[in-house]
């Protein structure tokens, strides 16, 4: 059920979406889930360990792999990780994390900062 697309992946030789490296990370996840089951703390620790060595760039590949494989639990897990990473951070930090540049007109961004000034207060330091 969770791996309905995995068979398809192995059959599809020209697949560029998922590399072997990713497959070794994503695919063991459900087994680990079953082993740990409802023990949240252990799962958290496992998640921390897994992601300590993963850079944001790798994270993208993991997310896209989980998305392609239709693996909802892994996708939710990776999205949760990204959310935790950018939570309460400044706009510049988030831009750097995602490799994005501001494409606002000069006046537009200023207007936004003024309108939502309250949300930019008290963010964590970069």
């Amino acid at each position, binding site marked *: 059920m969770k791996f309905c697309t995995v068979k398809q992946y192995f059959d599809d030789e020209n697949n560029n979406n998922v590399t072997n490296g990713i497959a070794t990370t994503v695919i063991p996840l459900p087994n680990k889930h079953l082993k740990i089951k409802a023990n949240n703390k252990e799962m958290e620790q496992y998640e921390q360990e897994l992601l300590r060595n993963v850079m*944001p*760039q*790798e*994270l*993208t*590949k993991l*997310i*896209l792999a989980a*998305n392609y494989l239709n693996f909802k639990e892994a*996708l*939710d897990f990776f*999205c*949760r990780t*990204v*959310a935790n990473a*950018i*939570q*309460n*951070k*400044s*706009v510049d930090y*988030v*831009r750097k*994390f*995602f*490799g*994005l*540049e*501001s*494409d*606002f007109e000069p006046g537009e*961004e200023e207007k*936004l*900062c003024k309108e*939502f000034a*309250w*949300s*930019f207060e008290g*963010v964590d330091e970069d």
Partner: protein
Amino acid sequence: MSDNLSMLDSLPHEILTNVFVRLPIKSIVTCTAVCKTWKSLIQNPTFISSHLHHSSNNNNKHPLLLFRLCSSEEKEHYVLHFDNQDFNEYTRFDDFPFHGQSYDGIFHVVGTCNGLVFLTDNLYRYHNNFVLWNPCVRKFVKLPKPNITCFSHGGYNASVGFGFDSKTNDYKVVRFVTLGEKGQMGKSPPEVEVYSLSTGKWRMVTALPPIGAARGHDPEAFVNGALHWVALRKTGTKFLNFVMVFDLGDEVFREIALPKLSDQNGDEYWVRVSISAYGNSLALFQPGFPNHRLSIWVMKDYADASSWTKIKTLPDAFLVEGIPRSHCIPKCFRKSGEVIVELYGGYLSSRDLKTKDFKDLRIRGYANTFVDSYVESLVLLDKPNQLRKRQKRKRNNNRKQICGPMLYKIHRFRFFLRCKTQNRSWSKHSKHSTF
């Protein structure tokens, strides 16, 4: 390396949505300033609905209660508490944007829905100014003047309610107005008008309501997509209370009968009850007279009038800080089914209806305390803060002059200032002409 970096910015929108809905609201708002794509993704009704859905699911596990407490200086405080054993504070909304802008100092909170708080001011029972406010994103919409006001239609009693129409993904405010000029109370249907957030306008409802009178200021319950309020009908020589129901989606009326509430030959003119949401059904609060005992009825099966069950009559006193407190004013039900009551002196406590346990919530309001369940949301994030628009409406040709010069000059703030010299809030009010 640069190829890898550029991949994060090309994540599909569904995945970005999956990330954003997990962020606290403050961070989501910060993300609108990252780039244009993110801004248009977030400030979008579809995303706002997705976020609300996620927030509601979280809320089922960790329900919240919104408290509006007034201090003796007529300042309003809005606080969110966890609706659990510990009842700890979750957050405060310190940025109430309308301090001192209500005629009598503080606003009347009508209700909450999907993170929106609906406020009206209160001028001798007439609500003239209505505001929809989302404290989570600090956005508000001031409604245009309704079609029926005391200047256009003369004296009236009105009940006002607020809810969400899931058919059109729209928020609606509904007023049920019983005009004084219609004659005998309880023998005619009310005038009903609806405000829709998506159109920004009031319009009269076309469906014919059942005969029933609004008694004014009574709260309404929004349950199962419909607004419920207690109306009074005169049949022969006797008055009877019943629940009038207005479905927000279909905009049609229904009725639900109430249990027998009076021993006085079936005449319920003097019976005043208030209705409340109770899970997916309704509850009724009947204050006792003259015993100050509160009766609570619950409709076990929604819309089945035969399932009204009297579950409790609360006795008087409960010790708070060693002093017996009484005069229970019910506020709302907690997720657990306990009822929050306000005791004499503004002390809020939680009462278990099965056991008889009272729990002191250690929260105290000065007066006009409002409590209701609350869900955080981004509703109104896609709209600018909106001052009231002037809405053209058909004038009633039989325009009545309200008896007495005082009401006629209501809109002239300086005159009113002279009438209310004692009220400190007016000194602030005279400097503003916001309303």
